[in-house]
């Protein structure tokens, strides 16, 4: 009985840990595009934007998050702390658009 209880507690602890395990995602910035342009993640996950262009870029959702200038070959990581759907742009090249969805 006690053993079963311990096992059950352990199982809950393990599954809880699995669910909470944050994931790491990558968005590549290349040829003046975010790839993928739309990404969906879970709260607590982190997303890294890697700039493979020869130009600087930004990842900016006004009032929500802002990478500032990411230099060529540079990268920027954001931890998705808030749920929601965020449209972002490159402020230097405002025709570049992306979306981050956080569940």
């Amino acid at each position: 009985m006690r053993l079963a209880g311990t096992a059950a507690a352990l199982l809950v602890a393990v599954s809880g840990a699995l669910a909470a395990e944050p994931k790491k995602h990558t968005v590549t910035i290349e040829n003046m595009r975010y790839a993928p342009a739309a990404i969906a993640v879970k709260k607590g996950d982190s997303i890294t934007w890697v700039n493979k262009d020869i130009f600087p870029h930004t990842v900016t959702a006004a009032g929500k998050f802002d990478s500032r200038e990411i230099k060529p070959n540079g990268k920027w990581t954001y931890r998705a702390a808030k749920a929601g759907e965020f449209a972002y742009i490159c402020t230097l090249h405002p025709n570049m658009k992306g979306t981050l969805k956080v569940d």
Partner: protein
Amino acid sequence: MNAGRMLLVALLAAAGAAFAQAPNDAQIAHIVVTANQVDIDAGKLAQKKAKRADVKAFGKQMVTDHTAVNKQAVALAKKLKVTPEDNPTSQSLKAGGDANVKKLKTLKGDAFDKAYVDQEVTYHEAVLDAIDKVLIPNAKNAELKALIEKVRPAIDGHLQHAKMVQAQLAK
């Protein structure tokens, strides 16, 4: 004929000339460097003279991006041991660019902003056309062709950006 028209005519002439006499790689390299330089010169002027912040920022970005492209183009020419060769298209581009800067220097405020942005729209359209009709089809060296293909999305992006600023100015 205004400066924008002149540049357009120069680039279209280059497109037409492709049938008679295709530019070689050394000439293509020269055209690429000249086309970038023309936009850098105009961008530098806009950084100093533009009235609106978004026009100034656009000019600054043109200087940054086109300088980056030219750095790559010059490095590639060096690597391939190609000496960029002056040619009629480069000369027309340079003459058109100089005429544009000269005209912009006489303008101020809203008139400067409008003339600069209108010209940037025309210029990037003409450059895109030249990339598709002249530069990519005639580039023999694979790395040179790859560089031009890599630059194309940036020119396209600049065109869209310029159109966005143009739409703001029209409000």
